[in-house]
């Protein structure tokens, strides 16, 4: 039997599997320290590169695993959901989400975990998400055109670059390793930078 298996699950089994997978999702997010808005936003002040390191480690581990299972024929890639590319909405959406991240201190997944250990600000953030989604959904008919612009289907990097999947996987691994190296190098010197960066506040000029 080839993966994915969910199609053959009964409803209770499906719910149970979802809860278990979610449990580990939340557990590891919390362990990484992503239940703290201060730790998350420190990424953007070059004080702590945990966000980058955790994200890229997770992507690399899952990507390599998926690539191997697909090559061995154990995972049927035609049954795997690849997020469709809508270039412009995704870039604008990314900018909005990045802005929301630095203003609010969380992203949707981490706000759930933060709220679960008692962070009150995370509850406000979650309320904000619901409001944002409501505003977006209710108003969507007015900008459907933009929302579906730049549609490229389920485009993947190997398709876009016209490279072998294995080469792209290797390239992403190398880029991630490079990013880790830069992050490890930067954490020290940037701390000094960040200290002065923060100092501009003391003068009360800005």
């Amino acid at each position, binding site marked *: 039997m080839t993966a*994915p298996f*969910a199609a053959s699950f009964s409803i209770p089994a499906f*719910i149970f599997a*979802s809860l278990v*997978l979610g*449990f*580990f*999702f939340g*557990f*590891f*997010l919390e362990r990484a*320290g992503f*239940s703290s*808005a201060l730790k998350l936003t420190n990424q953007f*002040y070059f004080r702590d590169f945990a966000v980058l390191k*955790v*994200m*890229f480690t997770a992507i690399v581990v*899952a990507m390599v*695993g*998926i690539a191997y299972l697909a090559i061995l024929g154990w995972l049927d890639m035609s049954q*795997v*959901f690849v997020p469709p*590319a*809508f270039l412009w909405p*995704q870039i604008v*959406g*990314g900018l*909005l*989400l990045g*802005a929301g991240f*630095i*203003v*609010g*201190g*969380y992203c*949707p*997944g981490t706000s*759930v975990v933060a709220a679960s250990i008692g962070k*009150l*600000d*995370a509850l*406000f*953030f979650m309320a*904000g*998400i619901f409001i*944002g989604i409501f*505003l*977006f*959904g209710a108003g*969507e008919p007015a900008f*459907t055109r933009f929302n579906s612009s730049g549609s490229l289907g389920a*485009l*993947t*990097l190997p398709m876009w670059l016209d490279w*072998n999947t*294995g080469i792209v996987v*290797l390239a*992403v691994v190398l880029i991630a390793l490079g990013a*880790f190296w830069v992050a490890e190098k930067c954490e020290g010197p940037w701390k000094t930078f960040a200290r002065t960066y923060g100092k501009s506040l003391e003068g009360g000029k800005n």
Partner: protein
Amino acid sequence: MPFETLPLEPVELTAEQAEVMAQRQLKKHHVAIILLHWFNATVWLLELATGAGLIASSYFRFAPDWYLEILTSIFGSRANMLRFHISLGVTWIVVFAVYGIFGFRTYLEMEVLQREIALDRDDWRWLRIRLLRMLKRTAEALAPQGIYNAGQKLFAVMIYCMIPVIMATGVIMAFHLFGMAAVRWSIVVHFLAVGVVVSGLIVHVYMGAVFPEEKPAFFSMITGMVNELYAYRHHFKWWKEVKMQEREWERAFETGQPPAPAAPAAEPPLAVQPPARAASIFRSRDYWPPYVAGAGLGLTLLATFIVMGQGLGASGGFTRYLVAVIASFAPGYAAAHPYWSNYYQPGQSPLLDFLVFELIGAAIGGFVSGWLSGRLRVSVDKGPRISNRTRYALALGGGILTGIGARLARGCTSGLALSGGAVLSAGAFAFMMAVFAAGFAGAYLMRRYWL
């Protein structure tokens, strides 16, 4: 003389002792070994370069076309390249056979192999401490090492296992021995064995050529010598052996007596106190190192793809909860609305979805993790200069921006960046870059609220 009596265990050196030791050289490698090492390195480089171009099956071929073109223009034809690969490989086998036969007593003696390859108790301890130190779980000193450290020994064991396999399968393939089936299997085994060695080679080359602490080891492969300070710090047991032998010879010179056969180095007394046990990592109050937590998250993501055929997510689950609320108040509106109707059809619950239950699981998982590590506390995360009320307003505003952005992008940091990234979705990488760009840009504007 830096030491009156030789220490049994590594001791802190004074600056003076270190200075003297840094100046002195010890001989580590015989010139024959150095030549063999570089011969081997050259062969590996050339065989890997041509071997990569020889993989015919489109399933395994990873070399890009331009690379194959370069190789073809160098060798003229693929057949020539194959001839080169085989003749170099045979030369390599012959050289190693000569080395094995004539150097048998010097290099392949049981005692030498035991000293240079077999892992003893100190080596296993060294590996364990090394690993924990990399994870920042311990500050314990590394166990003293012999002429090669445990990592080098592991690499050697792997090489000793894989090289005969590579040689045998290569010969079978090159001369079509034992029938077609054997040749076919040889192709796969050859490829796998080379892959195993290459994975070790990457570390080996990195350690030798890049890693600053191991610089003396790299130069010892050229000059044959290492300085005594390096030997003392990194290969203490070997250093002690060399020193004991030196003293034996000195004494013999002074007394005119022939030296007694080198006495086996006295076993250092067992460590007095057992190494401090790292506190259980599940109850540790510290966050896990990002690479460990990231690997856990990655395995969870992989399992999700295997079981569910989709990745982890968050904002999709939020949307479904919201649609469920809307539909319970105004089912007609929800079913007729062009956007909400994507999630709601009359008679169908918008809540029967992976993400909906996954979010409940995530809240439980976060709670359990926080509980085990003593982080459960009603609190507010904020910068030092703002009030709680300001923080709530910012969180709400940030949440609204995030909600809009996530729906526009059709996913959030988990649903699009993480899950899409793992299946190499082009949109996911564009999204990721946008998130980081806006985050870093916004960080400057928001600094008074966080710093």
